[in-house]
């Protein structure tokens, strides 16, 4: 102790403590774990069980250090992953303490006695924390000459996760992740002592949407992926940062590839968005790009045979340009919801400049005019600085989810909700139909309504559930609304009223990665890029100037939405269609959509793989999947998620490039030759001070239950893992999808006479599906079906929407 205070003594801010680690004074926030403080200083204490996002366990004992408190050394070395910093603590890590060093070496040796010498055949070999640490700190030879504990290996604990119990060091990261983060405690410790092992209950596989994360955080090769099994070694992989192309969360990912093929995807660490987790769809669903039906060359339909045949780019573009030029002013553009910001911008500009139309819509799903108004008035232009964010959800006192199934539609939003609710700070309410797993796992309260009755339920909140409105009144509260809301008339309007009344902010969380960006770039019939209104002359003038067009050359009449375009094409009003990545079976009326494709004089399809659209297309132009191009996704927060090209030199072109060249053929300039150029062109448009759209005001209505016998209202939404085309070619992932069942209440089953049957047959005048059913707490007179799982393809087979009346009969009877 020095008598006089040193000159540059550390200042201890409030809520902080001062301690000494390895002779260096350091200030740390109260409650911080010692292992983190040391890490911040650059002293890495070895560890296996510790993980910054999991509750401490203190199981592996690898991180032992010597601690002195108040001048008295603690009698035993302490686990630095469980002990919090305290004022006046003196810590000696392995760097300065022989005791800590010996303790760590001892634990390392003990960990290795039962670890098999598997490294050459283990998928973790080369990136294994145990291997690295054994190499860095372990003994060169083993003193253990006795019998190792053995287990049968490997055992599949789900179709995509394999468990090798011999390799396991029982750090419990996987079990803690499943129980704490995902809320799917399907794996647990079994047995005791040296026989202790990770396991699943009999016949209850590890069916979690987040199970892939356990593979990533496993510090040894105990949990490995069936899809990546024996595929490559880390030294031979190139790791490229990327952004997930599936949902609107925009998770940061790391894509590992070699020899032009993606081998695996891992979660990258982005504390603002996905922390260190991604869902299994984001992790495993990437093989679709290598499907056999991928379109690799431009194709033109042969007039004589009616078959598509390969053509050169020049020929295909010429044919397309000629047809589209002819149809100028009578062509519609359907872009789908999976485009990058740059690509969607190119479509938006292509429609306006090359086709001279506002008939463009990205919504390849049920939609409404009210939704369009909501997007134009409330969603467009929001950014993480001005709108709701992931961290905002975590800090919100109350969250209301309306027509939004977080776990199925935006899994990372679900994880944030659960994290917030688990800490006990956030109360979560769901307006939906049944207590789904997401309601349970977010410790949520369900406010059940019949499908289609959500708007009335929102309007009635203040009288029926004053605790919800009171909760939403607390600053920071949030309303999350999903894509299903477009199927409920008046819901957006009701939510805007609720928001105004309570002060809670609304976030729109679409299901697809490209939807939010498409709103921003004006891939909508009423919007130009940047939220500018088509109907507003000043806004048009701004765009005309930025695009270098003649004043007045932009079409000034708001265009048709997806339904309008389909109808117009089906009855011959529109002569040509430009379709980019739309599955007609996702549309509200697939039959009409197919008719439109058949009827239109000319269909140009920009596609990755052969589809129902290419079947009718006159020209098919191949485009690049997201790993083969650069771009930006705008996630639901409005956050820019930029990514570079992962697989270079495959020859695949992004949509913006294809459209740019096509436009040149049509004598128009888009300036979107590359994603960078497109982004630059978009940036030049800048912000606008022109008028914003007015908010929708649609009356909510009470949903009345069907009166006739054998009828029920259909509630439906899509599950995360289903028949989606981006999940094809990945059987291991498909094996963890949820069981395809219908759900209804016991009372409803009795009334409908299906309670004795094993399956239900749900039908409309379009068709029927027969499916096993389960009881759930749905309102009476309601049946729930997954949107597009297994044989249950609601839109395709039934042509029904959320809230439609359907006939329900016992399976097998009429």
């Amino acid at each position, binding site marked *: 102790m020095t008598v006089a205070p040193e000159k540059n003594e550390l200042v201890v801010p409030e809520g902080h403590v001062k301690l000494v680690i390895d002779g260096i004074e350091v200030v740390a926030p109260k409650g911080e774990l010692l292992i983190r403080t040391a890490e911040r200083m650059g002293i890495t204490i070895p560890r296996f069980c510790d993980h910054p996002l999991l509750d401490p366990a203190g199981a592996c004992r690898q991180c032992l250090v010597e601690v002195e408190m108040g001048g008295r050394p603690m009698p*035993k070395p302490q686990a630095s992953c469980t002990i919090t910093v305290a004022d006046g603590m003196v810590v000696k890590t392995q760097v300065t303490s022989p005791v800590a060093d010996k*303790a760590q070496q001892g634990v390392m040796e*003990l960990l290795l006695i039962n670890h098999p010498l598997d490294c050459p055949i283990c998928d973790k070999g080369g990136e294994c924390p145990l291997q690295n640490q054994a190499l860095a700190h372990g003994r060169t030879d083993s003193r253990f000459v006795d019998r190792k504990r053995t287990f049968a290996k490997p055992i599949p604990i789900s179709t995509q996760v394999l468990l090798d119990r011999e390799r396991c060091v029982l750090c419990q990261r996987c079990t803690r992740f499943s129980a704490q983060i995902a809320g799917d405690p399907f794996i647990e410790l079994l047995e005791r002592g040296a026989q202790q092992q990770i396991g699943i209950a009999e016949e209850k596989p590890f069916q979690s949407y987040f199970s892939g994360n356990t593979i990533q955080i496993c510090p040894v090769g105990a949990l490995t992926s069936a899809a990546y099994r024996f595929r490559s070694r880390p030294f031979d992989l190139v790791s490229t940062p990327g952004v997930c192309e599936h949902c609107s969360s925009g998770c940061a990912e790391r894509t590992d590839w070699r020899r032009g093929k993606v081998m695996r995807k891992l979660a990258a660490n982005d504390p603002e968005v996905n922390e260190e987790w991604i869902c299994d769809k984001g992790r495993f669903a990437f093989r679709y790009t290598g499907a056999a039906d991928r379109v690799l060359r431009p194709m033109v339909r042969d007039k004589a045979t009616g078959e598509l045949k390969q053509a050169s780019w020049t020929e295909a573009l010429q044919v397309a340009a000629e047809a589209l030029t002819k149809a100028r002013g009578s062509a519609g553009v359907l872009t789908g919801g999976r485009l990058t910001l740059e690509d969607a911008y190119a479509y938006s500009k292509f429609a306006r400049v090359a086709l001279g139309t506002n008939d463009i819509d990205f919504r390849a799903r049920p939609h409404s005019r009210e939704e369009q108004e909501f997007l134009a008035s409330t969603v467009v232009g929001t950014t993480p600085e001005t709108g709701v964010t992931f961290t905002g959800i975590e800090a919100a006192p109350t969250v209301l989810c309306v027509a939004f199934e977080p776990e199925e539609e935006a899994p990372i939003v679900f994880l944030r909700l659960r994290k917030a609710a688990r800490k006990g700070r956030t109360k979560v309410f769901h307006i939906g139909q049944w207590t789904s797993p997401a309601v349970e796992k977010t410790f949520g309260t369900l406010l059940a309504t019949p499908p289609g009755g959500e708007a009335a339920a929102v309007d009635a909140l203040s009288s029926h559930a004053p605790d919800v409105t009171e909760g939403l009144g607390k600053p920071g509260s949030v309303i999350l609304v999903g894509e299903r809301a477009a199927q409920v008339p008046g819901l957006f309007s009701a939510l805007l009223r609720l928001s105004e009344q309570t002060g809670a902010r609304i976030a729109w969380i679409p299901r697809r990665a490209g939807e939010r960006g498409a709103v921003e770039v004006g891939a909508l019939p009423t919007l130009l890029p940047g939220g500018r209104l088509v109907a507003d002359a000043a806004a048009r003038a701004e765009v005309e100037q930025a695009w270098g067009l003649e004043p007045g050359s932009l079409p000034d009449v708001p265009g048709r939405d997806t339904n309008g375009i389909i109808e117009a094409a089906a009855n011959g009003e529109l002569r040509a269609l430009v379709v980019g990545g739309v599955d007609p079976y996702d549309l509200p009326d697939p039959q009409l959509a197919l008719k439109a494709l058949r009827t239109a004089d000319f269909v140009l399809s920009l596609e990755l793989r052969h589809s129902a659209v290419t079947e009718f297309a006159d020209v098919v132009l191949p485009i690049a999947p997201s790993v083969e191009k650069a771009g930006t996704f705008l996630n639901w927060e409005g956050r820019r998620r930029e990514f570079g090209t992962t697989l270079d030199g495959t020859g695949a072109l992004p949509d913006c490039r294809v459209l740019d060249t096509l436009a040149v053929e049509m004598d128009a300039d888009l300036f979107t030759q590359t994603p960078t150029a497109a982004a630059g062109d978009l940036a030049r448009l800048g912000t606008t001070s022109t008028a914003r759209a007015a908010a929708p005001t649609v009356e909510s209505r009470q949903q009345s239950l069907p009166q006739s016998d054998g009828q029920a209202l259909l509630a439906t939404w899509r599950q995360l893992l289903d028949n989606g085309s981006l999940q094809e070619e990945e059987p291991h992932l498909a094996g963890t999808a949820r069981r395809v069942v219908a759900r209804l209440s016991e009372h409803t089953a009795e009334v409908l006479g299906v309670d004795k049957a094993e399956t239900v047959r749900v039908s409309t005048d379009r068709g029927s599906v027969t499916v096993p059913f389960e009881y759930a707490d749905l309102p009476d007179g309601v049946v729930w079906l997954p949107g597009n799982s297994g044989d249950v393809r609601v839109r395709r087979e039934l042509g029904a929407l959320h809230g439609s009346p359907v006939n329900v009969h016992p399976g097998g009877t009429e």
Partner: protein
Amino acid sequence: MSTVDPVTPVLTKRWLSPRSWSIQTYEQLEGYTALRKALTATPEQIVQVVKDSGLRGRGGAGFPSGLKWSFMPPNEDKPHYLVINADEGEPGTCKDIPLMMADPHSLIEGCVIASYAMRSHHCFIYVRGEVLHCIRRLNAAVKEAKAAGYLGENILGSGYDLEITVHAGAGAYICGEETALLDSLEGRRGQPRLKPPFPAAAGLYAAPTTVNNVETIASVPYIINGGSDWFRRMGTEKSPGPKIYSISGHVERPGQYEAPLGTTLRQLLEMAGGMKDGIPLKFWTPGGSSTPMFTAEHLDVPLDFEGAAEAGSMLGTTAVQVFNETVSVPWAVMKWTQFYKHESCGKCTPCREGTYWLVQILERMVDGNGTEEDIDTLLDVCDNVLGRSFCALGDGAVSPIQSGIKYFRDEFLALCQKNREKNRKPAMAGAN
């Protein structure tokens, strides 16, 4: 020290009465008088009396009970719980189960007084699952006490309510560790919890909880009746009170002997009729297998918390296991280690893997296949387990090995000698 002056039994005074376990016998022999007295006092006063008496936990660690009770929060924001640790599983320890068999009401009375002192309205007795007879007797006693108004609502008209639940464990040694016991009681996997939070802050169902040993709680009624000064007249200054010594092994009359703390083995052996068949003493444990062993030179070590610690061991549960010269130390140590390997819960690496390894080395040695290096390996592995494990199980597991090698290294070496001769390498490679 030649003559033993056995104190009048306190804890065991009713054990030999006919039907000692019935409430009638108990009531006849001053049963439930302490409870009546206690209910007239305030909880704080009772805690103070227990503090003054110097009663220390009888489960092994010897933590002052009054102090432990005073950690319970004074308010009742959350329910408070008293949990009795009756998961007696330590090799050699056999005091709590006889106590509960012979005199269950003394425990129940203690529970009511202690619960009242800690403002708890629910008390759990976690009994080891194997002792079915004892569980039945406890359940019957709880029923009797309830019928007599010593339990349930408005006990003896005082307005104080208490429920006692007798819970049968599933026979895991680790559940004698207080936090593992709480997890097990909650229906989880019995594995020790991270501390802090300590049970007094967040124990059973995350509510303030005190976990006490059976004998500790059974001592409480006598303290209330006799007063702290009376209690302090027995035993030593820092370890007052009577204690049940469980003497097993090679003595003429093994069994439970109540004596004040600080009694020596020499005195205890006299009480137990001396060594069996006169074969001399070789080694013994003062408090179960987890306490380092003693030898004949420790006959006069006063068996209280301080005395045992000074002599390099621990008082533990005063389970005195006596071994005569016919017993091989490596063999006994191997058997104990096999127990720990079987009972290690598996949560932390040192205990799980350490006991797995130690057993194999010891088995090899006892089979005559050990080497001198194995002794060093044993000691080094013990060093890597001791103080490195999550709970005290690991510490307990290595103490027989360390103390065994400390006092009887020659025996271990002798085993290796045999092996060395057997496996002597020919002087020239390939010459055999």
